[in-house]
């Protein structure tokens, strides 16, 4: 057998493998039918095509390699409408899930939430007012969020939560509280997005009291971050309610964050704010989380017209620096310190505060020859095309034991419940005090929650999780120690 034959044999094998993946069955869903019914019928590798029409439902996908594809005809979209009654439009826990071409409106919780599924792709969706979050992959590895349009979300429009190896590209987010949030996540590329008219445009931070304790290695590149001056309309008391209106980019406790080649204008509090964990809440008492923002690189951003009307406390802060205007760039609290190892290019170009101890970093001239794919590294991130993995991440497997319970807790519960910080739901600490060791009571409650806290949103029912797993997760939650 010569070399060529081996190569051909390999090629045929590849084709066979590819067809095995791509030639799953195709299921069609028409107006008046149920998407969930098609998912129930589908098997791993199948595609579900959803035709224009209005669908009032929550779709759960716990199988692997399912593609949910909207079919648009003459500008008519398949429309998932929660009528402000349903909590979620699409919840997936399966691996290898794709969803594209849906219009999703009027849910109370999420448009598309990933609950620990790996290798996901969320593209071309049009999301309006789906409550707390728009697109929210939680606790997933290796995912793509691309070309989506999201508005009127009262927490984060795109929320990369406790997820690693994620690209967020080419989305448009506006009229939300937070445009794009990278929270307790690692290896994330946020590129080419338009984040405009939110309360805050793009945020990289750590929420203390979550199972994943760090947020590092994020590139925020080539985004348009403009006029993020919408008054904060988050639920009072929730963490994002503390974000000042007029914030372009906020880095809070994030490490190794590169902010490069963005256009950042018209943000009334400030263009870029780098600060530590106590910026939004002083209760950053997670001993496993480092509250400081280390190794932040701010390079080659176009910034003007920022800081025209700083919000609330930021106004007082600027007055203390003898300025009525907010800055293009503000390093605040511990972020000003030399030992944080942060740097700024062309510092003289910006109206900035707190950068005295930052070092200079390079923003080299990019010639035509430097821009091609094969060009040498000239000290920018332009050679880097993606933060996603070359080979898919191992599929997440949920076992019926304490390990599985940890995955379910991280993938579902931790989206709203931190240990000792108020996110969307009450902190785990409060639940522990309320229930003690009554695992059964918690497992029963989450299957059929009744609203008992008028100033908190309703808890969405989790009855789709087996009682065995609910008991395991309840035991995990009641045993958490921060």
């Amino acid at each position, binding site marked *: 057998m010569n070399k060529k034959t081996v190569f051909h044999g390999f090629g045929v094998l590849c084709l066979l493998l590819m067809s095995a993946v791509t030639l799953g069955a195709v299921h069609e869903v028409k107006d008046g039918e149920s998407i969930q019914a098609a998912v129930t019928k589908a098997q791993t590798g199948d595609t579900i095509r959803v035709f224009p029409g209005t669908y009032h439902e929550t779709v759960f996908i716990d199988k692997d390699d399912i593609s949910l594809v909207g079919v648009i005809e003459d500008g008519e979209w398949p429309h998932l409408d929660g009528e402000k009654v349903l909590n979620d439009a699409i919840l997936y826990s399966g691996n290898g899930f794709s969803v594209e071409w849906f219009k999703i409106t009027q849910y109370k919780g999420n448009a598309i939430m990933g609950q620990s599924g790996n290798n996901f792709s969320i593209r071309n969706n049009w999301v309006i007012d789906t409550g707390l979050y728009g697109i929210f992959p939680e606790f997933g590895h290796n995912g793509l969020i691309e070309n989506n349009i999201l508005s009127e979300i009262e927490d984060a429009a795109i929320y990369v939560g406790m997820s690693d190896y994620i690209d967020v590209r080419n989305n448009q987010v506006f009229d939300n509280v937070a445009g794009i949030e990278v929270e307790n996540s690692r290896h994330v590329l946020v590129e080419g997005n338009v984040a405009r008219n939110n309360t805050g445009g793009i945020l990289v931070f750590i929420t203390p009291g979550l199972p994943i304790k760090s947020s590092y290695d994020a590139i925020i590149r080539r985004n348009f971050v403009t006029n993020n001056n919408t008054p904060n309309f988050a639920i*009072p*008391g929730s963490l994002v309610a503390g974000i000042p209106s007029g914030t372009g980019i906020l880095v809070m406790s994030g490490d190794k964050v590169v902010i490069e080649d963005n256009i950042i204008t018209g943000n009334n509090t400030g263009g870029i704010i780098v600060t530590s964990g106590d910026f939004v*809440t*002083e*209760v950053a*008492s997670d001993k496993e989380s480092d509250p400081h923002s280390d190794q932040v690189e701010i390079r080659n951003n176009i910034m003007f017209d920022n800081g025209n009307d700083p919000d609330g406390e930021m106004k007082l802060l600027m007055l203390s620096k003898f300025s009525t205007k907010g800055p293009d760039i503000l390093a605040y609290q511990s972020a000003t310190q030399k030992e944080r190892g942060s740097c700024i290019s062309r510092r003289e170009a910006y109206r900035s505060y707190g950068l005295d101890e930052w070092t200079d970093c390079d923003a080299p001239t990019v010639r035509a020859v430097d821009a091609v794919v094969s060009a040498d590294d000239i000290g920018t991130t332009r050679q880097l095309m993606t933060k996603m993995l070359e080979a898919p991440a191992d599929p997440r497997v949920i076992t019926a034991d304490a390990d599985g319970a940890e995955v379910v807790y991280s993938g579902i519960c931790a989206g709203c419940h931190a240990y*000792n*910080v*108020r996110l969307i739901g*009450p*902190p785990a*600490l*409060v639940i*522990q*005090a*309320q229930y*003690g060791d009554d695992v059964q009571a918690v497992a029963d409650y989450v299957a059929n929650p009744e609203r*008992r*806290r*008028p*100033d*908190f949103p309703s808890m969405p029912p989790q009855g789709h999780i087996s009682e065995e797993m609910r008991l395991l997760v309840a035991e995990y939650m009641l045993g958490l120690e921060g």
Partner: protein
Amino acid sequence: MRYRNRLATLVLAALAAGLSVVSVNAGDAYTQHCAQCHGESGAGNLELGAPNLTGLSESYISRQLSGFKAGWRDNRDLQTRTMTSAIATLDDNSLSAAVAAIARLPHQKAKKTAQTQSGDLARGKDLYTAYCSACHGTNGTGNDALGAPSLVGLDSDYMNRQYRHFVEGRRGFHPDDRYGKQMARLSLAVKDPNLIHDISSYVVQLPF
């Protein structure tokens, strides 16, 4: 020492006045059994350590009164001893009449204490939001469904003292005091007890 003696005299005098009349008329029940310490308006008395009752819900007050009767509110200090003996001779009808009367009292503002203004309000708000708001409400108005009393209108001395009692196991220790036990457990979440001053300073300025 002199202060404590004076306090004891005041309390005993008030108590004696209360016990001298026995009646179960709703309006009168409060005047006769509670007003000596908590005041005609129900706004409380800082010197006696009697809290403002006017923000508290009917179910919370009647639960605590049964606690004093049943002995799961302790009686190791002057205030709790006074409460225990003040209601010892009252039958259930008189107690309900008093509770009903309290529920009708118009809201009274929290009394200002020496400490009130000294706390860090921003820190107090953060801590309150994280640890307290889930049960006592974002605005401090309490939640009967969870057995959490309103904190609005309470003075900071009273709140600090109750918090200390929870931490020290003097309140929320009894198996029958279900909600008190929850509070006792949560009180340990605030690691540095000095921070309770920040929290109570924040709470006293919350409006009804």
